[in-house]
């Protein structure tokens, strides 16, 4: 028997790669806490015995929840994108293609614009958006399921059409509301991590980690599915059931994220791609690594969004789009397609 020359995935490699990424994430979090449009005095900020002071409020109430939310959202989007790319066998799939985002955005905007004024928007809008996400998942599922199978091509088409429909309705809403509301709608859509309710952030954290766990258990199935439905079946995957499970898991992840922070694009597209180039396509390593890399990416993007113009906020979706789109184009040109003809 030949001497073992394979370099398979081992627990050691899993821990090393993810451990390194986790370390980078922690450093990123600390660095991001130190950066902002306003300089704060660290000692005063962390002095718990003192009176409530602006530095502490900035750090604990403004920055830290926002940074944590960025990490959670970035991780969730990257994970969802990774799983969806495997499901659709396409490294260019963005989680927002699924149609869930459009439906969640539409419901959220309706709540934003038409709610009675006494209902504050901090919880009502995300709740409505998530309800929209659930409804959209159901609709897309029903439309895309042909003969019991969730076909990739059909799923993609239905998602695009559904998003176009939602976008049309959103445009319509924006023409009938007044100027202030229209601008509010636009900024909500572009994605923002600022001033989100604490409870939502906590709930989202648990939720997205659960989603990551579910997908991680199916990591091997994702590898097999990326070869084709028949190939996956031949390798022992229950194709229909698994495709459905992954579609639902990804939709719920994306729906929750859009409900809380609007549509932040390109994270779910670029991060899985980059991580796959770095660590390979084995989803058992790729999924957790993508989560951590997505978290790092979005924390930095958000830090940029909140510091580059000083006191003025830029929606984080703007930063990811401006940085992501050219980078994506560069990747397209440079990447020799790793597909067999």
């Amino acid at each position, binding site marked *: 028997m030949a001497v073992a020359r394979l370099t398979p995935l081992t627990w050691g490699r899993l821990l090393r790669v993810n451990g390194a990424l986790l370390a980078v994430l922690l450093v990123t979090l600390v660095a991001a806490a130190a950066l902002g449009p306003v300089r704060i005095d660290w000692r005063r900020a962390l002095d718990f015995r003192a009176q409530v002071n602006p530095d502490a409020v900035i750090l604990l109430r403004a920055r830290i929840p926002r940074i944590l939310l960025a990490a959670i959202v970035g991780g969730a989007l990257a994970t969802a994108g990774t799983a969806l790319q495997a499901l659709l066998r396409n490294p260019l799939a963005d989680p927002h293609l699924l149609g869930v985002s459009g439906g969640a955005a539409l419901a959220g905007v309706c709540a934003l614009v038409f709610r009675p004024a006494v209902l504050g928007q901090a919880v009502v809008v995300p709740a409505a958006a998530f309800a929209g996400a659930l409804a959209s998942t159901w609709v897309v599922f029903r439309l895309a399921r042909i003969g019991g199978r969730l076909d990739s091509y059909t799923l993609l088409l239905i998602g695009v059409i559904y998003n176009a429909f939602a976008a049309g309705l959103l445009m319509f809403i924006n023409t009938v509301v007044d100027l202030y509301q229209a601008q509010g709608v636009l900024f909500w859509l572009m994605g923002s991590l600022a001033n989100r309710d604490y409870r939502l952030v906590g709930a989202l954290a648990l939720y997205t980690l659960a989603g990551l766990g579910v997908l991680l258990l199916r990591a091997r199935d994702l590898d097999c599915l990326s070869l084709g439905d028949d190939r996956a079946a031949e390798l022992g995957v229950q194709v229909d059931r698994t495709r459905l499970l992954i579609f639902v898991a990804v939709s719920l992840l994306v729906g929750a994220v859009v409900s809380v922070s609007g549509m932040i694009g390109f994270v779910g597209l670029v991060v899985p791609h980059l991580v796959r180039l770095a660590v*390979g396509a084995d989803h058992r390593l790729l999924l957790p690594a993508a989560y951590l890399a997505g978290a790092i990416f979005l924390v930095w993007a958000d830090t940029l969004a909140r510091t580059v113009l000083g006191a003025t906020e830029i929606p984080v979706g703007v930063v990811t789009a401006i940085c992501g789109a050219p980078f994506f184009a560069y990747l397209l040109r440079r990447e020799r397609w790793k597909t067999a003809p």
Partner: protein
Amino acid sequence: MTGSRSGHGADAVTNGVLVRADRLRFAYGQREALSDVTLAVGRGEMLAIAGPNGSGKSTLLSLLSGVRRPAAGTVRLAGRDLAAYGRREVARLVAVVPQETAVAFPYTVAEMVLMGRAPHLHGIGLEGARDLAVAERAMDRTGVLVFADRLLAELSGGERQRVIVARALAQEPSLLLLDEPTTFLDLRHAIEILELIAGLNEREGLTVVAVLHDLTLAAAYFRRIAFLRAGRLVADGPPLSVITEATVRAVFDAEVRVAADSDGVLTVRPLRREGR
């Protein structure tokens, strides 16, 4: 001739038959692909299936592997109805080498072969020492171990095909189904693959069903040939009786000359319309 290898599923031997198809019928929409196909493959047999394009060969393989369900008729694997098996169970018994593989992601050769161990592992299970040994052995025999860390996309069509064969072997199947395994291979590699498969069949009793276009190659390696035409099984038997000029004309609409060489192995050559 059954080798005793670990990793097998249900081993009920029913008259030595490993897989039996009874009156299979399958249709794509309105178009009938298979009609009333009955076939039994014994343990340790090597069967080649040939036929014109669209005769249902690939469909038959997909029914034998359980990836498709017949509209009528049954497939029994080791005595049990295939529909009664779990998907993973089947994948531990039956491995498929498809015609071609399109890969969307940058998997390495090693990663691709190790996917063959997926039916033996659970959830996020990482491969153990035995899994690695099995995969390595498969890669060694197909001659792709040197490519272990190369990306699949960097290999030629033939090399890639051998990797897929290695993956199938890594599943440690009792039954190996191949869909035109030699179509993209050059002569040397085509021979190597067939030699490999024949060797596995002889030494370890691996049951093989392969769809082949090249009748001469089929005759050289397979002791049993079946012809499909328009979804029906029209011939089934040893090469000498099945591969005749009349049968080939009837099944393939092609004029050939069939001859046996000094070793008794058949060659099939086309009959030129003009000239010699």
